[in-house]
């Protein structure tokens, strides 16, 4: 996985742009917790084969939560909405931003990394990964290699039975007790960049708030 720190950096950048009036320390803390949470499926790895990047890294959860959130905050009468009654407008805002951040800063970022994610787990058990490039060339026109339409290749990989995404809890499908403990923070320049960009925005917002106060 791009490390949890990278997810958190990108999450900060996105959350600062979307929270608006709900931007406060409590909201940021909550969103950071939600961004870290999916990594808990690494802990299920020793008991369930291929749990990491499947159990909590899928689109099934965001779709279900999104439908419920829409029903509760848009469809129901405002005085009936559970979220609004309990947490007010702040809660509604933070909930939507948390869903957005979970989707883009965690699930989709992992979709473009290593073996990808198990998109519709547990409904349909198959890993998918996003890999390719888009370019416009004078000789070949528009080139797009993310999906191969001729071979119907949309980045499908294996299932939970034969796919293992390396993680600090289990480096390989059959971990040995003396495996090294390896915690990646940033494995490339752009990963380090996302961490720094998130920190930059959080610090810049503090400067702005102090000046506006």
């Amino acid at each position, binding site marked *: 996985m*791009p490390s949890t720190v990278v997810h958190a950096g*990108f999450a900060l*950048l*996105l959350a*600062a*742009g*979307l929270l*608006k009036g709900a931007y406060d320390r409590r909201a940021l803390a909550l969103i950071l917790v939600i961004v870290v949470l999916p990594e808990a499926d690494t802990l299920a790895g020793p008991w369930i084969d291929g749990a990491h990047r499947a159990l909590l890294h899928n689109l099934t959860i965001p779709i279900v939560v999104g439908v419920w959130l829409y029903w509760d905050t848009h469809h129901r009468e405002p005085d009936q909405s559970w979220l609004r009654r309990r947490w007010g407008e702040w809660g509604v805002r933070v909930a939507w931003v948390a869903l*957005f951040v979970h989707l*883009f*800063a965690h699930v*989709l*970022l992992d*979709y*473009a*990394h290593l073996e990808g994610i198990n998109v519709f787990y547990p409904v349909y058990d198959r890993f998918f*990964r*996003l*890999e*390719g*490039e*888009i*370019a*416009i*060339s*004078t*000789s070949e026109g528009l080139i797009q290699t*993310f999906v191969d339409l001729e071979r119907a290749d949309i980045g499908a990989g294996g299932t939970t039975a034969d796919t293992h995404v390396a993680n600090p809890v289990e480096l390989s499908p059959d971990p040995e007790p003396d495996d*090294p*403990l*390896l*915690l*990646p*923070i*940033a*494995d*490339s*320049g*752009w990963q*380090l*960049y996302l961490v*720094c*960009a998130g920190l*930059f*925005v959080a610090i*810049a*917002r503090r400067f*702005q708030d102090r000046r*506006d106060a």
Partner: protein
Amino acid sequence: MAPTLVNVAIGVLLGLALLGVALDRKSLAIVAVAAALPDLDAAASLVIYGGTNAVFHTLLLPAVAFVGLYWDTRYRERSWLASRYGWYGVRVAWVSLAAYVVAGIGVDLVHADGVALLYPLHDRFYAVVGRFRLSDQEGIIFTFVERGEGLLWLTSPGTTADHHVESWINPTPGTGLEFGIERTLVVVETGWQLIVVAAAAVAAAVRLREES
């Protein structure tokens, strides 16, 4: 260099995060342009040898802008920018400057092509590449910073004389406009760039719909 679309996407995300009450269609467009601006040095490289990722990717330009902006908005008794465009103008100017540095130069700095950070004072490309890991056997592995031959402790792919950064404007080393050669405009290079662009597009659409 990293695709300009990625610079713009990061710039848009910075704009959404930092513009605050000054956010509208116009201010976000200005910030996005500021993030794309450094990549114009690809056009300058048609005249200046090895100018891509150097001429406008130097930190000296934004440093001058910073001094000017600081002097005008903080030091002077009557700021020209504030009297002309008000609080809105001051905020947009600062966020645009941040987008130029962080999104315009920063994104290209973490790309293997590198950026000539101190051009023309110090002619050398630098790139922040490497890894940062914690291991129980090897301790802290941090290879982004390395003592090299350059002035800064970063990986250096070369100087403007021997390192050419390809672009669709100037694909081959050297100056002058060439005809009949293949040109490739890279839109996104990898999956994560596509996700960043998608996130920026959706976030901007949502925020601008709310503001209007």
